[in-house]
Protein backbone atom coordinates (compact mmCIF):
# COMPACT_ATOMS: atom_id res chain seq x y z
CA UNK A 1 0.00 0.00 0.00
CA UNK A 2 2.80 2.37 0.91
CA UNK A 3 5.67 0.92 -1.04
CA UNK A 4 7.21 2.59 -4.03
CA UNK A 5 10.13 1.86 -6.31
CA UNK A 6 12.32 4.53 -7.81
CA UNK A 7 15.25 3.78 -10.08
CA UNK A 8 15.46 0.29 -8.67
CA UNK A 9 15.40 1.44 -5.05
CA UNK A 10 12.62 -0.20 -3.14
CA UNK A 11 11.08 1.93 -0.42
CA UNK A 12 8.77 0.43 2.18
CA UNK A 13 7.04 3.76 2.49
CA UNK A 14 7.28 7.04 0.59
CA UNK A 15 8.61 9.20 3.42
CA UNK A 16 12.39 9.65 3.57
CA UNK A 17 14.74 11.82 5.59
CA UNK A 18 16.05 14.92 3.75
CA UNK A 19 19.73 15.74 3.56
CA UNK A 20 21.37 17.80 6.27
CA UNK A 21 18.85 17.09 8.97
CA UNK A 22 20.25 14.82 11.65
CA UNK A 23 22.20 13.12 8.92
CA UNK A 24 25.76 13.60 10.04
CA UNK A 25 25.88 10.88 12.69
CA UNK A 26 25.33 7.19 12.40
CA UNK A 27 23.29 7.09 15.57
CA UNK A 28 20.59 9.49 14.43
CA UNK A 29 20.43 7.95 10.97
CA UNK A 30 19.83 4.57 12.57
CA UNK A 31 17.05 5.97 14.76
CA UNK A 32 15.32 7.65 11.86
CA UNK A 33 15.75 4.71 9.52
CA UNK A 34 13.55 2.67 11.82
CA UNK A 35 10.52 4.41 10.36
CA UNK A 36 11.64 6.24 7.24
CA UNK A 37 11.34 4.77 3.76
CA UNK A 38 14.95 5.84 3.16
CA UNK A 39 17.50 8.17 4.69
CA UNK A 40 19.72 10.74 3.03
CA UNK A 41 22.95 11.72 4.74
CA UNK A 42 24.20 15.23 5.31
CA UNK A 43 25.96 16.45 2.18
CA UNK A 44 29.64 15.61 2.14
CA UNK A 45 32.55 17.03 0.15
CA UNK A 46 36.07 15.74 -0.32
CA UNK A 47 37.70 18.10 2.16
CA UNK A 48 36.65 19.02 5.66
CA UNK A 49 34.61 22.24 5.83
CA UNK A 50 33.96 24.11 9.04
CA UNK A 51 30.72 25.63 7.87
CA UNK A 52 29.55 28.97 9.14
CA UNK A 53 29.74 30.25 12.66
CA UNK A 54 26.71 30.27 14.91
CA UNK A 55 24.02 31.49 14.59
CA UNK A 56 23.57 29.36 11.52
CA UNK A 57 19.99 28.19 12.03
CA UNK A 58 17.02 30.32 13.05
CA UNK A 59 13.51 29.09 13.48
CA UNK A 60 10.53 31.22 12.79
CA UNK A 61 6.84 30.59 13.04
CA UNK A 62 6.51 29.32 9.50
CA UNK A 63 9.96 28.10 8.72
CA UNK A 64 13.59 27.58 9.49
CA UNK A 65 16.36 29.65 7.95
CA UNK A 66 19.73 27.96 7.86
CA UNK A 67 23.19 28.78 6.67
CA UNK A 68 25.09 25.83 8.04
CA UNK A 69 27.43 26.31 5.11
CA UNK A 70 27.86 22.67 4.21
CA UNK A 71 29.78 21.90 7.35
CA UNK A 72 31.30 18.49 6.80
CA UNK A 73 34.10 16.36 8.21
CA UNK A 74 35.18 15.47 4.67
CA UNK A 75 34.59 12.30 2.69
CA UNK A 76 37.15 10.13 4.44
CA UNK A 77 36.06 10.77 8.00
CA UNK A 78 32.40 10.67 7.07
CA UNK A 79 32.72 7.36 5.32
CA UNK A 80 34.39 6.00 8.49
CA UNK A 81 31.43 7.27 10.52
CA UNK A 82 28.93 5.61 8.23
CA UNK A 83 30.56 2.47 6.99
CA UNK A 84 29.38 0.14 9.68
CA UNK A 85 25.90 1.52 9.75
CA UNK A 86 23.34 -1.21 9.75
CA UNK A 87 19.95 -0.13 8.57
CA UNK A 88 17.40 -1.98 6.51
CA UNK A 89 16.45 1.01 4.40
CA UNK A 90 18.15 2.57 1.41
CA UNK A 91 21.00 4.85 2.46
CA UNK A 92 21.34 7.74 0.05
CA UNK A 93 24.60 9.64 0.32
CA UNK A 94 24.39 13.33 -0.52
CA UNK A 95 27.43 14.84 -2.23
CA UNK A 96 28.60 18.36 -2.87
CA UNK A 97 31.54 19.47 -4.97
CA UNK A 98 32.65 22.48 -6.97
CA UNK A 99 32.89 20.67 -10.31
CA UNK A 100 32.08 17.42 -12.15
CA UNK A 101 35.51 15.86 -11.50
CA UNK A 102 35.25 16.28 -7.75
CA UNK A 103 31.71 14.98 -7.74
CA UNK A 104 32.93 11.84 -9.49
CA UNK A 105 35.81 11.41 -7.06
CA UNK A 106 33.45 11.31 -4.08
CA UNK A 107 31.65 8.20 -5.21
CA UNK A 108 34.41 5.77 -4.30
CA UNK A 109 34.41 6.79 -0.66
CA UNK A 110 30.92 5.37 -0.20
CA UNK A 111 30.75 1.82 -1.52
CA UNK A 112 27.93 1.09 0.93
CA UNK A 113 25.62 3.80 -0.49
CA UNK A 114 22.36 2.65 -2.06
CA UNK A 115 22.23 5.77 -4.21
CA UNK A 116 23.78 9.22 -4.52
CA UNK A 117 22.10 12.57 -4.31
CA UNK A 118 23.91 15.55 -5.80
CA UNK A 119 23.41 18.74 -3.88
CA UNK A 120 23.21 21.23 -6.74
CA UNK A 121 21.18 23.59 -4.73
CA UNK A 122 22.58 24.79 -1.43
CA UNK A 123 21.75 28.50 -1.51
CA UNK A 124 24.41 29.83 0.82
CA UNK A 125 27.73 28.07 0.21
CA UNK A 126 29.82 30.04 -2.23
CA UNK A 127 30.90 28.26 -5.43
CA UNK A 128 29.09 25.13 -4.29
CA UNK A 129 25.52 24.00 -4.55
CA UNK A 130 23.32 26.65 -6.05
CA UNK A 131 25.93 28.40 -8.07
CA UNK A 132 26.12 25.16 -10.03
CA UNK A 133 22.44 24.40 -9.77
CA UNK A 134 21.25 27.50 -11.65
CA UNK A 135 23.38 26.64 -14.66
CA UNK A 136 21.91 24.05 -17.01
CA UNK A 137 25.23 23.02 -18.51
CA UNK A 138 26.92 22.60 -15.14
CA UNK A 139 24.03 20.52 -13.84
CA UNK A 140 24.14 18.26 -16.84
CA UNK A 141 27.88 17.69 -16.64
CA UNK A 142 27.95 17.09 -12.89
CA UNK A 143 25.21 14.49 -13.18
CA UNK A 144 26.94 12.88 -16.12
CA UNK A 145 30.27 12.71 -14.30
CA UNK A 146 28.72 10.87 -11.37
CA UNK A 147 26.69 8.58 -13.60
CA UNK A 148 29.88 7.60 -15.36
CA UNK A 149 31.55 6.89 -12.04
CA UNK A 150 28.90 4.62 -10.54
CA UNK A 151 26.18 2.15 -11.44
CA UNK A 152 24.06 3.22 -8.56
CA UNK A 153 21.06 5.52 -8.97
CA UNK A 154 21.96 9.20 -9.06
CA UNK A 155 19.52 11.89 -7.97
CA UNK A 156 19.96 15.58 -8.71
CA UNK A 157 18.69 17.91 -6.00
CA UNK A 158 17.38 21.12 -7.51
CA UNK A 159 17.12 24.66 -6.24
CA UNK A 160 13.84 26.58 -6.44
CA UNK A 161 15.80 29.85 -6.69
CA UNK A 162 15.58 29.93 -10.46
CA UNK A 163 13.33 31.53 -13.02
CA UNK A 164 12.39 28.18 -14.54
CA UNK A 165 13.06 24.99 -12.64
CA UNK A 166 11.93 22.80 -15.51
CA UNK A 167 14.97 23.82 -17.54
CA UNK A 168 17.27 22.66 -14.77
CA UNK A 169 15.28 19.48 -14.36
CA UNK A 170 15.58 18.74 -18.05
CA UNK A 171 19.33 19.35 -17.88
CA UNK A 172 19.63 16.81 -15.07
CA UNK A 173 17.57 14.34 -17.05
CA UNK A 174 19.81 14.90 -20.05
CA UNK A 175 22.86 14.26 -17.88
CA UNK A 176 21.38 10.87 -17.04
CA UNK A 177 19.89 11.50 -13.60
CA UNK A 178 17.68 8.69 -12.34
CA UNK A 179 15.48 11.17 -10.52
CA UNK A 180 15.40 14.77 -9.38
CA UNK A 181 14.80 15.95 -5.85
CA UNK A 182 12.70 19.12 -5.66
CA UNK A 183 13.57 21.21 -3.76
CA UNK A 184 16.28 22.63 -1.57
CA UNK A 185 15.73 25.84 0.44
CA UNK A 186 14.82 29.31 -0.83
CA UNK A 187 17.19 32.17 -0.25
CA UNK A 188 16.10 34.15 2.77
CA UNK A 189 17.32 36.51 5.43
CA UNK A 190 16.36 37.65 8.90
CA UNK A 191 17.22 40.92 10.59
CA UNK A 192 17.45 41.65 14.26
CA UNK A 193 15.95 45.09 14.70
CA UNK A 194 17.61 45.62 18.08
CA UNK A 195 21.19 45.11 17.02
CA UNK A 196 20.24 46.30 13.50
CA UNK A 197 22.12 43.41 11.94
CA UNK A 198 21.41 40.30 9.95
CA UNK A 199 20.88 37.44 12.39
CA UNK A 200 22.77 34.69 10.55
CA UNK A 201 26.54 34.88 10.66
CA UNK A 202 26.49 34.35 6.90
CA UNK A 203 23.75 36.99 6.45
CA UNK A 204 21.88 35.04 3.78
CA UNK A 205 20.49 31.57 4.37
CA UNK A 206 17.88 29.26 2.97
CA UNK A 207 14.36 28.90 4.26
CA UNK A 208 12.71 25.52 4.71
CA UNK A 209 9.63 24.30 6.51
CA UNK A 210 5.95 25.12 6.15
CA UNK A 211 6.68 28.46 4.49
CA UNK A 212 7.94 26.78 1.35
CA UNK A 213 5.47 23.94 1.01
CA UNK A 214 3.25 25.39 -1.67
CA UNK A 215 6.27 26.68 -3.56
CA UNK A 216 8.02 23.30 -3.51
CA UNK A 217 4.76 21.63 -4.48
CA UNK A 218 4.52 23.90 -7.49
CA UNK A 219 8.07 22.94 -8.50
CA UNK A 220 7.12 19.27 -8.36
CA UNK A 221 3.99 20.00 -10.38
CA UNK A 222 5.93 21.85 -13.08
CA UNK A 223 8.64 19.20 -13.26
CA UNK A 224 6.09 16.43 -13.56
CA UNK A 225 4.69 18.11 -16.64
CA UNK A 226 8.01 17.93 -18.49
CA UNK A 227 10.20 15.15 -17.08
CA UNK A 228 10.23 11.46 -17.83
CA UNK A 229 12.31 10.55 -14.77
CA UNK A 230 10.75 10.33 -11.31
CA UNK A 231 10.57 13.28 -8.94
CA UNK A 232 11.31 13.17 -5.25
CA UNK A 233 9.39 15.87 -3.41
CA UNK A 234 10.89 17.92 -0.61
CA UNK A 235 10.03 21.16 1.11
CA UNK A 236 7.77 22.02 4.00
CA UNK A 237 6.17 18.63 4.41
CA UNK A 238 4.96 18.16 7.95
CA UNK A 239 2.01 15.78 7.86
CA UNK A 240 0.44 12.99 5.87
CA UNK A 241 -1.79 15.34 3.90
CA UNK A 242 1.27 17.21 2.68
CA UNK A 243 2.79 13.89 1.63
CA UNK A 244 -0.26 13.06 -0.45
CA UNK A 245 -0.33 16.52 -2.00
CA UNK A 246 3.24 16.00 -3.20
CA UNK A 247 2.52 12.53 -4.48
CA UNK A 248 -0.58 13.65 -6.35
CA UNK A 249 1.42 16.56 -7.80
CA UNK A 250 3.90 14.06 -9.19
CA UNK A 251 6.40 13.01 -6.53
CA UNK A 252 7.27 9.32 -6.34
CA UNK A 253 8.28 9.75 -2.74
CA UNK A 254 9.08 12.62 -0.43
CA UNK A 255 11.78 13.78 1.95
CA UNK A 256 11.26 15.54 5.24
CA UNK A 257 13.63 17.87 7.01
CA UNK A 258 12.44 20.74 9.15
CA UNK A 259 9.49 18.83 10.53
CA UNK A 260 11.98 16.86 12.61
CA UNK A 261 11.88 19.86 14.83
CA UNK A 262 8.77 18.33 16.32
CA UNK A 263 10.22 14.97 17.13
CA UNK A 264 12.82 12.45 16.13
CA UNK A 265 9.85 10.24 15.35
CA UNK A 266 8.09 12.65 13.05
CA UNK A 267 8.16 10.18 10.20
CA UNK A 268 6.65 7.39 12.27
CA UNK A 269 3.52 9.43 12.91
CA UNK A 270 3.20 10.56 9.34
CA UNK A 271 3.57 7.08 7.92
CA UNK A 272 1.00 5.65 10.32
CA UNK A 273 -1.59 8.27 9.43
CA UNK A 274 -0.88 7.85 5.77
CA UNK A 275 -1.37 4.13 6.05
CA UNK A 276 -4.66 4.54 7.91
CA UNK A 277 -5.98 6.91 5.32
CA UNK A 278 -4.98 4.83 2.33
CA UNK A 279 -6.38 1.76 4.02
CA UNK A 280 -9.72 3.48 4.50
CA UNK A 281 -9.74 4.43 0.82
CA UNK A 282 -8.18 1.20 -0.37
CA UNK A 283 -5.62 3.08 -2.42
CA UNK A 284 -1.93 2.57 -3.10
CA UNK A 285 0.71 5.26 -3.16
CA UNK A 286 2.08 4.17 -6.47
CA UNK A 287 -1.29 4.65 -8.14
CA UNK A 288 -1.57 8.18 -6.83
CA UNK A 289 1.65 9.59 -8.26
CA UNK A 290 0.75 12.57 -10.40
CA UNK A 291 -3.01 11.93 -10.41
CA UNK A 292 -3.82 15.59 -9.87
CA UNK A 293 -2.63 16.32 -13.39
CA UNK A 294 -5.75 14.54 -14.61
CA UNK A 295 -6.32 12.83 -17.95
CA UNK A 296 -4.09 10.01 -19.11
Amino acid sequence: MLSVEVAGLKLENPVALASGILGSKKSSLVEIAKFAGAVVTKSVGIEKREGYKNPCVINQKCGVINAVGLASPGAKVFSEELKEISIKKPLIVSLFAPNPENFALLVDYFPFASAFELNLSCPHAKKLGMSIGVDEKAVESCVKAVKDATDKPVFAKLTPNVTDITKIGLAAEKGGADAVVAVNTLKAISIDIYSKKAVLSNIVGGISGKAIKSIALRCVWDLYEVLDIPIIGCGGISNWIDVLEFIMAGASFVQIGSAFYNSLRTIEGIVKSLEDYLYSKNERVKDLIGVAHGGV
Partner: protein
Amino acid sequence: MEVYNLYCLSVKKVKKFNNIAIIEFDREIRGYPGQFIMLNVFGFEEIPLSLSSPKTITVKNVGKTTNRVVNTKEGDVFGIRGPFGRPFSYPDVEKIYLIAGGIGIAPLNYLYEYFKDEIEVIAIHGVKTKEELIYDYPEVATEDGSVGFRGNAVELFLKLADFKEEFRVYSCGPKPMLLSLYKIMKKLGKLESLEVSLENYMRCGIGLCGSCVTESGARVCRDGPTFKGTDVSEKDFI
Protein backbone atom coordinates in the same frame (compact mmCIF):
# COMPACT_ATOMS: atom_id res chain seq x y z
CA MET B 1 6.66 25.63 15.67
CA GLU B 2 7.58 27.70 18.65
CA VAL B 3 9.48 30.80 17.71
CA TYR B 4 12.74 31.82 19.27
CA ASN B 5 13.25 35.38 18.18
CA LEU B 6 16.50 36.96 19.05
CA TYR B 7 16.10 39.61 21.72
CA CYS B 8 18.57 41.63 23.69
CA LEU B 9 19.35 41.84 27.36
CA SER B 10 21.91 43.99 29.05
CA VAL B 11 24.22 43.01 31.84
CA LYS B 12 23.32 44.35 35.24
CA LYS B 13 26.02 42.82 37.40
CA VAL B 14 29.10 40.68 36.92
CA LYS B 15 30.64 38.59 39.65
CA LYS B 16 34.00 37.48 38.44
CA PHE B 17 36.26 34.72 39.71
CA ASN B 18 39.48 33.81 37.94
CA ASN B 19 38.22 32.36 34.71
CA ILE B 20 34.56 32.07 35.61
CA ALA B 21 31.90 34.76 35.83
CA ILE B 22 28.35 34.88 37.10
CA ILE B 23 26.55 37.34 34.89
CA GLU B 24 23.26 38.86 35.91
CA PHE B 25 20.94 40.38 33.30
CA ASP B 26 18.59 43.28 33.79
CA ARG B 27 15.55 41.09 33.22
CA GLU B 28 14.42 37.55 33.92
CA ILE B 29 14.55 34.94 31.21
CA ARG B 30 11.44 32.82 31.43
CA GLY B 31 12.63 29.30 31.68
CA TYR B 32 13.12 26.33 33.93
CA PRO B 33 16.15 24.74 35.52
CA GLY B 34 17.97 22.59 33.00
CA GLN B 35 17.09 24.71 30.00
CA PHE B 36 19.70 26.62 28.07
CA ILE B 37 19.83 29.74 25.96
CA MET B 38 21.77 30.58 22.86
CA LEU B 39 23.83 33.63 23.71
CA ASN B 40 24.67 35.74 20.72
CA VAL B 41 27.90 37.51 21.45
CA PHE B 42 27.98 40.19 18.78
CA GLY B 43 31.16 39.99 16.78
CA PHE B 44 31.81 36.51 18.15
CA GLU B 45 29.75 33.34 18.01
CA GLU B 46 26.44 32.27 19.36
CA ILE B 47 26.99 29.72 22.13
CA PRO B 48 24.76 27.53 24.29
CA LEU B 49 24.71 28.35 28.00
CA SER B 50 22.58 26.97 30.78
CA LEU B 51 20.50 29.28 32.89
CA SER B 52 22.05 29.29 36.35
CA SER B 53 19.04 31.19 37.74
CA PRO B 54 16.21 33.14 36.11
CA LYS B 55 18.47 36.13 35.64
CA THR B 56 21.96 34.68 35.47
CA ILE B 57 24.37 32.65 33.43
CA THR B 58 27.56 31.21 34.83
CA VAL B 59 30.32 30.96 32.32
CA LYS B 60 33.79 29.51 32.17
CA ASN B 61 36.41 30.89 29.86
CA VAL B 62 37.44 28.07 27.52
CA GLY B 63 37.83 29.83 24.20
CA LYS B 64 37.33 32.98 22.17
CA THR B 65 33.67 33.56 22.77
CA THR B 66 33.54 32.58 26.42
CA ASN B 67 36.57 34.76 26.98
CA ARG B 68 34.60 37.73 25.72
CA VAL B 69 31.62 36.76 27.88
CA VAL B 70 33.58 36.25 31.06
CA ASN B 71 35.18 39.65 30.61
CA THR B 72 31.87 41.42 30.07
CA LYS B 73 31.01 44.63 31.90
CA GLU B 74 27.85 46.13 33.29
CA GLY B 75 25.71 47.57 30.51
CA ASP B 76 27.03 45.26 27.81
CA VAL B 77 24.29 43.94 25.54
CA PHE B 78 23.91 40.34 24.43
CA GLY B 79 21.48 38.72 22.03
CA ILE B 80 19.48 35.86 23.43
CA ARG B 81 17.39 33.12 21.88
CA GLY B 82 15.54 30.56 23.88
CA PRO B 83 15.33 29.09 26.40
CA PHE B 84 15.61 25.78 24.64
CA GLY B 85 15.57 22.17 25.67
CA ARG B 86 13.89 19.98 28.20
CA PRO B 87 14.09 21.16 31.80
CA PHE B 88 15.01 18.83 34.63
CA SER B 89 12.00 16.79 35.63
CA TYR B 90 9.99 17.69 38.68
CA PRO B 91 11.38 15.82 41.68
CA ASP B 92 8.42 13.94 43.11
CA VAL B 93 10.43 12.95 46.16
CA GLU B 94 11.37 14.73 49.38
CA LYS B 95 15.10 14.69 48.87
CA ILE B 96 17.38 15.32 45.92
CA TYR B 97 21.11 15.31 45.38
CA LEU B 98 22.72 17.67 42.91
CA ILE B 99 26.13 16.49 41.77
CA ALA B 100 28.08 19.13 39.88
CA GLY B 101 31.51 18.83 38.35
CA GLY B 102 33.22 22.14 37.57
CA ILE B 103 31.13 24.49 35.45
CA GLY B 104 28.41 21.81 35.52
CA ILE B 105 27.24 23.75 38.53
CA ALA B 106 25.48 26.26 36.25
CA PRO B 107 22.19 24.44 35.55
CA LEU B 108 22.22 22.74 38.95
CA ASN B 109 22.42 26.02 40.79
CA TYR B 110 19.13 27.02 39.19
CA LEU B 111 17.60 23.72 40.27
CA TYR B 112 18.96 24.33 43.75
CA GLU B 113 17.38 27.75 44.01
CA TYR B 114 14.14 26.48 42.56
CA PHE B 115 13.58 23.73 45.09
CA LYS B 116 15.65 24.49 48.16
CA ASP B 117 12.71 25.91 50.09
CA GLU B 118 10.39 23.09 49.18
CA ILE B 119 12.34 19.92 49.64
CA GLU B 120 15.68 18.79 50.94
CA VAL B 121 18.31 19.65 48.33
CA ILE B 122 21.85 18.50 48.88
CA ALA B 123 24.13 20.26 46.43
CA ILE B 124 27.57 18.79 45.93
CA HIS B 125 30.10 20.74 43.96
CA GLY B 126 33.33 19.07 42.91
CA VAL B 127 36.21 21.14 41.56
CA LYS B 128 39.94 20.87 41.06
CA THR B 129 40.88 23.45 43.63
CA LYS B 130 39.12 25.89 45.92
CA GLU B 131 39.53 28.87 43.55
CA GLU B 132 36.85 27.33 41.40
CA LEU B 133 34.22 27.38 44.11
CA ILE B 134 31.95 30.17 43.04
CA TYR B 135 28.83 29.32 44.98
CA ASP B 136 28.52 28.75 48.72
CA TYR B 137 27.34 25.21 49.05
CA PRO B 138 28.08 23.31 52.23
CA GLU B 139 29.13 20.15 50.42
CA VAL B 140 32.25 20.66 48.37
CA ALA B 141 34.91 18.34 47.05
CA THR B 142 38.29 19.50 45.81
CA GLU B 143 40.70 17.26 44.01
CA ASP B 144 43.64 18.83 45.76
CA GLY B 145 41.88 18.81 49.11
CA SER B 146 42.33 22.56 49.45
CA VAL B 147 38.93 22.73 51.06
CA GLY B 148 36.15 20.29 51.97
CA PHE B 149 36.24 16.67 50.93
CA ARG B 150 39.34 15.53 49.09
CA GLY B 151 38.23 13.78 45.93
CA ASN B 152 35.55 14.27 43.35
CA ALA B 153 31.86 15.03 43.61
CA VAL B 154 30.74 11.49 42.94
CA GLU B 155 32.93 10.12 45.71
CA LEU B 156 31.51 12.70 48.10
CA PHE B 157 28.01 11.76 47.02
CA LEU B 158 28.73 8.10 47.79
CA LYS B 159 29.94 9.12 51.20
CA LEU B 160 26.86 11.19 51.97
CA ALA B 161 24.08 9.16 50.43
CA ASP B 162 21.97 6.62 52.26
CA PHE B 163 20.77 4.33 49.52
CA LYS B 164 17.93 3.00 51.64
CA GLU B 165 16.29 6.40 51.45
CA GLU B 166 14.27 7.52 48.49
CA PHE B 167 15.92 10.32 46.54
CA ARG B 168 16.75 11.57 43.10
CA VAL B 169 20.09 12.53 41.66
CA TYR B 170 20.62 15.36 39.20
CA SER B 171 24.04 15.72 37.72
CA CYS B 172 26.01 17.83 35.29
CA GLY B 173 29.71 17.89 34.67
CA PRO B 174 32.54 16.34 32.66
CA LYS B 175 31.66 13.15 30.84
CA PRO B 176 34.02 10.87 32.83
CA MET B 177 32.35 12.01 36.04
CA LEU B 178 28.90 11.39 34.59
CA LEU B 179 30.03 7.99 33.38
CA SER B 180 31.20 6.90 36.80
CA LEU B 181 27.96 8.12 38.35
CA TYR B 182 25.95 6.37 35.67
CA LYS B 183 27.75 3.08 36.29
CA ILE B 184 27.18 3.29 40.02
CA MET B 185 23.50 4.07 39.70
CA LYS B 186 23.12 1.30 37.17
CA LYS B 187 24.75 -1.21 39.45
CA LEU B 188 22.45 -0.12 42.25
CA GLY B 189 19.48 -0.57 39.95
CA LYS B 190 18.58 3.08 40.44
CA LEU B 191 18.90 4.46 36.94
CA GLU B 192 15.35 5.75 37.08
CA SER B 193 16.39 8.04 39.94
CA LEU B 194 19.21 9.58 37.91
CA GLU B 195 18.98 12.57 35.64
CA VAL B 196 21.96 14.02 33.80
CA SER B 197 22.49 17.11 31.73
CA LEU B 198 24.71 16.63 28.68
CA GLU B 199 26.70 19.21 26.77
CA ASN B 200 27.45 18.27 23.19
CA TYR B 201 28.63 20.62 20.50
CA MET B 202 25.65 22.57 19.24
CA ARG B 203 24.77 24.50 16.15
CA CYS B 204 21.06 24.91 15.58
CA GLY B 205 19.69 24.34 19.06
CA ILE B 206 16.38 23.19 17.61
CA GLY B 207 16.95 19.56 16.76
CA LEU B 208 17.70 19.76 13.06
CA CYS B 209 21.38 20.00 12.28
CA GLY B 210 22.43 16.85 14.09
CA SER B 211 25.64 18.15 15.57
CA CYS B 212 24.60 17.48 19.17
CA VAL B 213 23.32 13.97 18.59
CA THR B 214 24.41 11.40 21.18
CA GLU B 215 25.68 7.93 20.48
CA SER B 216 22.18 6.67 21.24
CA GLY B 217 20.80 8.90 18.52
CA ALA B 218 19.10 11.46 20.75
CA ARG B 219 19.38 15.19 20.27
CA VAL B 220 20.88 16.97 23.25
CA CYS B 221 19.32 20.28 22.26
CA ARG B 222 15.80 19.04 21.89
CA ASP B 223 15.40 15.61 23.48
CA GLY B 224 17.74 16.88 26.22
CA PRO B 225 19.96 18.42 27.49
CA THR B 226 18.52 16.62 30.50
CA PHE B 227 18.14 12.89 30.13
CA LYS B 228 16.73 10.25 32.45
CA GLY B 229 19.29 7.65 33.44
CA THR B 230 17.12 5.08 31.71
CA ASP B 231 17.29 6.95 28.41
CA VAL B 232 21.06 7.02 28.06
CA SER B 233 23.75 4.39 27.92
CA GLU B 234 27.46 4.21 28.65
CA LYS B 235 28.52 5.17 25.17
CA ASP B 236 26.82 8.56 25.54
CA PHE B 237 29.46 9.57 28.07
CA ILE B 238 32.45 8.89 25.86
